[in-house]
């Protein structure tokens, strides 16, 4: 059921070609132990998963996943209905459950997540689907950038709303909405 990799480049491919992109992503990802267990696309696990190595999920898991010091990759074909706790969590498939990443959480553009996320750093790629909450703590005082067009609006004037604004025009952004992602907390 599980296959272990010490060096994925030297191993025979064990998954269908459709999954190779996500496996490659897993191989390139930071690893704390250099080993990864793989739940293949044809596997359905109903229960809890604990362990001491990285995990790649291309199949289906219902239950809980807890790999505190390791990385969990949910591949594009992965379907997880479970709470996940790990050091690093990368999601390219579907997850329903709460996610705790003690280091970071990454939702790829093909990722679809419904749940609550707690992580010091989080990356959401353009195109990813997420419904739920994200707990964020930058760990430093809040810095609010002053607005460039600092033009206070009086309450009375605003309530009348009879006068069109001179300033609120739309302007070019200089970005195309492509494959963009952001990291939280400076990560």
């Amino acid at each position, binding site marked *: 059921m599980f296959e272990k990799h010490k060096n994925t480049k030297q191993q025979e491919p064990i998954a269908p070609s459709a999954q190779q992109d996500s496996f490659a992503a897993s191989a390139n990802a930071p690893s704390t132990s250099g080993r990864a267990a793989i739940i293949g696309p044809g596997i359905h696990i109903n229960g809890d998963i604990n362990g001491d190595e990285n995990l790649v999920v291309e199949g289906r898991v219902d239950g809980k996943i807890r790999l505190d010091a390791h990385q969990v990759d949910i591949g594009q074909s992965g379907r997880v209905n479970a709470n996940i706790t790990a050091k690093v969590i990368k999601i390219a498939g579907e997850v329903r459950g709460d996610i705790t990443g003690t280091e970071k959480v990454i939702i790829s553009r093909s990722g679809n997540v419904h749940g609550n996320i707690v992580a010091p750093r989080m990356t959401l*790629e353009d195109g990813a689907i997420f419904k739920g909450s994200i707990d964020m703590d930058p760990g430093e005082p809040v*810095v609010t950038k002053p607005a460039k*067009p600092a033009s206070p609006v009086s309450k009375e004037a605003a309530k009348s709303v009879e006068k069109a604004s001179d300033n609120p025009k*739309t302007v070019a952004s200089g970005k195309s909405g492509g494959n963009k992602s952001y990291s939280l907390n400076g990560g």
Partner: protein
Amino acid sequence: MVTGAAGVGYTSAASTMSRTQQTLLFPNLIKQVKEDRRLSVLEIGPALPETIEFFSRFKCRLHFAAMYTDPVLQMQMGEYTEAELADHITQSFDFPKNTLFDICLFWDFLNYLDDKALRAFNTAIRPYLHKSTRAHAFTVRTLNTTFSNQQYGIEQAHMFSIRPRQGKQARTTPHTQAILVNLLSNFDIDQGMLLPDGRLEVLMTASL
């Protein structure tokens, strides 16, 4: 860059092109944020990278409700009662217990709800408001104002991002300011700014 009507600038011919829009009101909302407490924010739309990045500077919990794709937009055209719609919206929200929002970002979502659905929305969101909850929304000054099929994010406190929304646009039911405050009785409008395209950007405070 090609500049279109109403000062809209486009940067790309790609279908995913985005624009930005200045806002004079949103900074007023953000500058009231207290540094020493965790902020609770409701984003009624989808999660966008720029919005997450913007709020990453705050100690906060950011809730993405993704209501633009919620079945309530179709259900409101059926024979559901206001109470049934309110129950559905509450289930869709699925907010953790004891959630109280400091900031609600409604964007133009309220204009996708007809009168009955908007009253239901008002009922459903009531448990998650406190006396100082503030909200941002777009409404209209006149009912012939149209809303494009677009989604909003926050680039900076004074700058929203606007992206085309994928999928068919749901039916819109624009509400004027007077009608909005009547149907959305949990809020009073504090400030408004008429935009060149006829939309009215408003800041609201809970009136509990």
